[in-house]
């Protein structure tokens, strides 16, 4: 079976990409490894989703429902309970190997592939937590799944490492279920979560947030018994004498998300060391022609609204690619992060493409009340944009018009902080 477009992953990104890629006559397949569509939104039962995209506050499942309804009547194939295990490409055709309990292992062919496979949580192994390795330490998202989908609480006395949004949300969620949440420790001097989550999940429940702190010991032979946190200096080295001990049975980790793209390894696409996702051009096309990326498998988002908006574009371009055969004409120009900018996306643009301009997504490396984003081409400053309340936790978007360009040199975006 040959499809025009195969979309891998039926969460927010895949649903949005599918919706915009759809057109009568195109053969489209959506593959989802779980029983139902919706992805991680299904377990995010708190509200706050959709404010930008739908202009109303929805819960995660409600947001997912909107995306599912939008594709319900489309003439497409949807394989649920089906897991993709490998992808290869010969000439212009992709072969996707997948498996399920109905057909076992089987292949489908595709002209274009959209990766919307989401992300996975960093584990204690990846951040090399010191101390013993008892039961009771798990990623916050896993605890969220056990609680919100399966209906089980993973512990009674909880500490949380990392102030990412999932950690904050789970602090409140565990508290509401009757667990004792003793605190949240964050290595950085600022929180990695959205401000509204700090206020609504920690402050409102008197849960202390220990900034510039990390875990320096874990005790427990079988079940977790105690954790120790210490303050860190500017170089993140723990300061002796600042230890605080907490007797807990559970440590939840909210220490970062990583794009889940291992299944694409055999395609050898270029991967950004900054986002750990694919390097893409303005069409959300990876270095492998015909392979598009969007959502958290491209870079980790703080708001699902932006996932939807980005994925709609990726779907649009995938459709265009299938119809036109190619999107890439000329050499690509790099777009690089400058001072105080962690990454910029897309990382490459084709300056000759027939477009009025581009929207860049980026993240700052520090908090700032007020600042100015400066866009350079080579040494020339071509644009400035003032911004307020800049935070690493919140993704920024900057639109750059093509007529501002002065050469073919690479672009760079920096942040200047105003005192």
């Amino acid at each position, binding site marked *: 079976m040959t499809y025009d477009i195969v979309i891998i992953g039926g969460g927010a990104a895949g649903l949005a990409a599918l919706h915009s890629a759809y057109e009568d006559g195109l053969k489209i397949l959506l593959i989802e*490894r779980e029983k139902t569509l919706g992805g991680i939104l299904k377990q995010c039962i708190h509200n706050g989703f959709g404010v930008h995209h739908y202009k109303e506050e929805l819960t995660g499942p409600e947001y997912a429902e909107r995306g599912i309804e939008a594709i319900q009547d489309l003439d497409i194939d949807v394989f649920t*309970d089906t*897991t993709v*295990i490998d992808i290869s490409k010969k000439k212009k055709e992709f072969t996707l190997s997948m*498996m*399920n*309990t*109905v*057909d*076992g*292992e089987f292949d489908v062919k595709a002209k274009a592939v959209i990766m919307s496979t989401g992300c*996975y*949580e960093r*584990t204690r*192994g*990846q951040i*090399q*937590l*010191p*101390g*013993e*390795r*008892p*039961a*009771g330490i*798990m*990623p916050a*998202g*896993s605890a969220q*799944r*056990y*609680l*919100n*989908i*399966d*209906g*089980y*609480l*993973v*512990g*009674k006395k909880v500490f949380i490492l990392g102030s990412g949004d999932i950690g904050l949300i789970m602090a409140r969620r565990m508290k509401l*279920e009757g667990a004792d949440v003793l605190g949240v420790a964050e290595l950085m001097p600022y929180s990695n979560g959205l401000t509204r989550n700090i206020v609504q999940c920690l402050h409102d429940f008197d849960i202390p947030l220990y900034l510039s702190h990390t875990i320096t*010991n*874990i005790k427990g*032979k*079988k*079940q977790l018994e105690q954790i120790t946190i210490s303050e860190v200096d500017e170089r993140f080295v723990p300061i002796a004498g600042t230890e605080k001990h907490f007797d807990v*049975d559970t440590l939840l980790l909210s220490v970062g998300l990583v794009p*889940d793209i*291992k*299944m694409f*390894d055999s395609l050898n696409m270029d991967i950004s*060391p900054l986002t750990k996702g694919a390097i893409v051009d303005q069409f959300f096309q990876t270095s492998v022609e015909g392979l598009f990326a969007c959502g958290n498998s491209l870079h980790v988002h703080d708001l699902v609204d932006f996932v939807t908006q980005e994925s709609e574009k990726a779907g649009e371009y995938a459709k265009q690619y299938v119809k036109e055969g190619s999107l890439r004409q000329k050499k690509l120009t790099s777009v690089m992060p400058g001072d105080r900018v962690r990454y910029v996306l897309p990382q490459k643009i084709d300056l000759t493409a027939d477009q009025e301009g581009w929207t860049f997504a980026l993240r700052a490396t520090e908090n700032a009340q007020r600042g100015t984003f400066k866009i350079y081409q080579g040494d020339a400053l071509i644009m400035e944009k003032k911004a307020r309340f800049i935070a690493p936790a919140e993704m920024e978007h900057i639109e750059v018009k093509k007529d501002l360009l002065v050469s073919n040199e690479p672009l760079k975006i920096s942040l200047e902080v105003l005192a």
Partner: protein
Amino acid sequence: MYDYLVIGAGVTGANIARMLSKYELNVIVLDKESDIGNGATLANSAIVHSGHDPKEDTLKAKLCVRGNALYHELEKNLDVPLMHNGAYLLASDEESEAQLDTLFNRAKYNGVHAEFVPLEVAFKEEPNIAKDTTRVLSLPSTKITYPWEVALACMENAVSNGVTYKGNQTVNSIQKDGDIFTVTTEEGDVYETKHIINAAGVFVEKIAAMIEKDVPYKINPRRGEYYVLDRRTKGFVNRTIYPVPSVRGKGVLLVPQIHGNILVGPNAIEQDSLDDYSNTPDGLRWVRNEASRIVQNIPFDQIIRTFTGIRPSIYQYDFYIEESLEVDNFFHVAGIDSPGLTAAPAIAEYVEEILKGKMRLVKKESYDPKRRKLVLYNEMTKRQQQKAFDEDKRYGNLICKCEKITEADVVKSIHSPIPATSVKAIKKRARAGAGLCQGGYCEHQVLKLLARELEKPLTQVDYYHPSTPLVKTETKVKP
């Protein structure tokens, strides 16, 4: 009444149990852990050493070389995985070159094949070894195994030949009345036996002290910390890469693993505790620096896990494998640190000789030396996969996508001869959760399969040890 009671189901105890199962004997193996091989067997470098390193004329030298050869029997009869990838020992200055000569001569003396390889060959074979390497000694008989599976294979084979295995049995007292030992456990069980073989690893002295006044050795536990790199790094080194031993210890190695990962470690730090498996930032930093001396550009961005093992060393250099001087029919198998994994089958053979010197052992007619491993879906050929799926649709349900483990693999592990009854026990048998996401995606599915197959509520399925459920309570309102 048992003829033999073995304390400890690590790789040593399991090999001894398998040896005993050849004879008309009533044998039981007790282990304090919920699963076999949870001590030094679970956390080591996984190397089947050539025997170039142990000092001349020691038991370690003799049993290492013999053990290395016996692994071929384990591979053939027990389906134990064995990677015949060899090793390189590297020198980078005059001092270490001199040591390489010493090791070369020792290898020769110990009967181990070793040869110097031209540098250009070494760099071609292992392009990532340090550029300042000046001399390379190749040890072609060095191999890699999956240590835990060695213990499992031996124990499964022993059990199928009539041995009883019981986990969650912590021995807390041993009495002897006449010829009969009475062994009691913390869990409240009592066993009577005519002989005891103490293969309790790091707890060997503690066990011996229950029956002997003067235990002839003192345990000296030494921690070793490791990094595990993701399977993506497969091929970064193909052989085990050793430095020469130095004042800094035996050295940090890079060891390709059976499943494609690469281990980097260990350090060697003496500690008092018998069960503190802590990782320390200082220890790991040291490992990282030491490893970078022999291999360049190690992909430390591909770390998926760190772990710590405890070597059951004693203060004597050599293994201590003897009958007790104080108590008849009580046998010590102590100080089984490196090359203990390699030596394990030879240790069993050595114990067999000691026993034969004491009593007549009658061969069991029905003894079958063979054991077939549970073949995982990802180890099958395409045709086998198709056949397996046709017979059991659960082979189509992918549980762990990192390691490509199916529902059928997990269910068969639960119902295997030494059953997996915890999330971690599944990880050891079927590798679900051993990959990049470390169980982030599959853990809840494994948990549910365990609950279903063991007919237990979710809140009673352990992560590993008894009473360590992953989920503690059911919330009031079911979603």
